[in-house]
């Protein structure tokens, strides 16, 4: 089982991303859970959302405290929220930032696997909006290898209709452009 914790701010679409990812994984024959951090959420405030994906039925229904992967949608949260809290040994950090993985390592005082991509820049170029939630799914799929980008097509089309292709293009660019150090 792979457990992912997403960090973002209310309104940045972390919940939409975990939902799209779970729906796509289930459509691809896997088992998955996608859920928000339970409770009231305010636009702009730090929020978290969670994904579990496995090849067999998932029984656990408690929160995720020791994620395999942490994905940071908004790099301004680094220093504000301990984004690597509970990260499993060997766990991976993915950050939406124009910085290099080496710089983020230093920022986080962390020596594990770090991957960075300028998701917001890509989203702005591909979709005309600085919202990187779907873009960063591409980054997550590249780093984890959970499934291919194709698996996202149906759920993104269902969700976004005529702007689906732009989201898929942005996702692909993040997939291709992400820089990883292990």
């Amino acid at each position, binding site marked *: 089982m792979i457990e992912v914790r997403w960090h973002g701010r209310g309104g940045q679409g972390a919940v939409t991303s*975990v939902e799209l990812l*779970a729906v796509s994984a*289930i459509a691809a024959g896997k088992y998955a*859970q*996608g*859920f928000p951090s339970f409770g009231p959420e305010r636009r702009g405030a730090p929020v978290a959302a969670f994904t579990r994906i496995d090849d067999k039925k998932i*029984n656990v*229904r*408690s929160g995720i405290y020791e994620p395999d992967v942490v994905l940071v949608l908004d790099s301004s949260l680094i220093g504000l929220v301990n984004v690597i809290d509970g990260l499993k040994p060997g766990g991976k950090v993915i950050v939406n930032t124009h910085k290099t993985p080496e710089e983020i390592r230093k920022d986080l005082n962390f020596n594990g696997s770090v991957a960075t991509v300028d998701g917001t820049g890509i989203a702005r170029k591909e979709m005309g909006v600085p919202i990187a939630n779907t873009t960063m799914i591409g980054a997550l799929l590249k780093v984890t290898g959970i499934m291919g980008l194709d698996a996202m097509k149906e759920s993104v089309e269902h969700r976004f209709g005529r702007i689906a292709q732009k989201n898929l293009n942005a996702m692909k660019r993040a997939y291709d452009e992400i820089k990883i150090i292990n």
Partner: protein
Amino acid sequence: MGKRVGLEVTVAVAEAVALCRIDMAGVYPITPQSHIAEHLSTLVADGKLDAEFVTVESEHSAMSAVIGASGAGARSYTATSSQGLMLMHELLPIASAMRLPITMAIANRAVSGPLNILNDHSDIMPQRDAGWIVVFAENGQEAIDLSIQAFKIAEHKDVMLPVSVNIDGFQLTHMVEPVEMPTQEEVDQFLPPFVPHATLHPARPVTMGAFAMSDYFTEIMKAKDEAVKNSKKVILDVWDEWAKIFDRSYKPVETYQADDADFLILTMGSMGETAQLAIDELRVKGVKAGLVKLRLWRPFPFAEIKAAVKNAKKLIVTDRAVSFGGPGGPVFSEIKSALYAETRRPAIYNYIYGLGGRDVTVHDFVGMFEKIIADTGNVAADTYEFWGVRE
């Protein structure tokens, strides 16, 4: 058989209710139920569900509206949570006394105060004696299945009682997870159109919910008690039929590794699957631990509970609500009462947990077993404890 898809559980429940071809929904949105109300109203607005969606101004009105609609012969549905259910409380015994087959989803949420929107069972427990059939879902699939079954049970001529389907708020309602959605053909095959016993109609006047003083009131209460008790036979029949069509079986009490267990834990609702993982962990360590899941709260399944726990040395009953100044959690006191006359019964411990959304992990369940096993003199048996409380 429907395809396995990923859906948020509330959306899946609304879709399932639409498959039941309801005539009317009267729902007031409240967290964490709101997505049921929103999705049902969307289905009606989009022309996908031919039903009247009544946008009521409160939960009291929601229950009043479904009582009226059900009395008029409509297949009627509502859903609520927490304070909304408390506001409906006055009307719940009226719905059952009028023998109206209403189906209601309760997205279980803690009752204020302090204000809290997260999950526990403090909303449903005060409704215990309203004369409704009460079932608890353990996962998204059960939330769907129980919602569909509820109409068939409620409308059966030997039942004619309202049913509440309890779905833990957030833990279940806000989870996107795999579910098999039955097809319209399957639901049509399972659930025939509603044929009411009597209907309110100007051309055929009848009285429903009439006045009764001391001359008849006791008899009416006895009749309602008999009706709730008798509903169990229909519930079992409907679950058997469901298993044949959908290959998913439902029982009033489910067990996991319980047959040879020395130590048992009893859960209701969404805690069951996490507890199951603790049982697996303990079994690997050689501890004979087992799980009992109570699905049917009313009518209470006395025989099944007795059978499930009779060989155990110790039993943990878990509660998601408090009976302040009382004998322990509400589930605990019912289980104790059910086993009172048994010559052979386990020592019973009560842990009150998961209040107001406090997370419960596999580690917590393992800890509960370790604690009762260490209590060799059964000193803490028959007492209750707030699990994990900071003092």
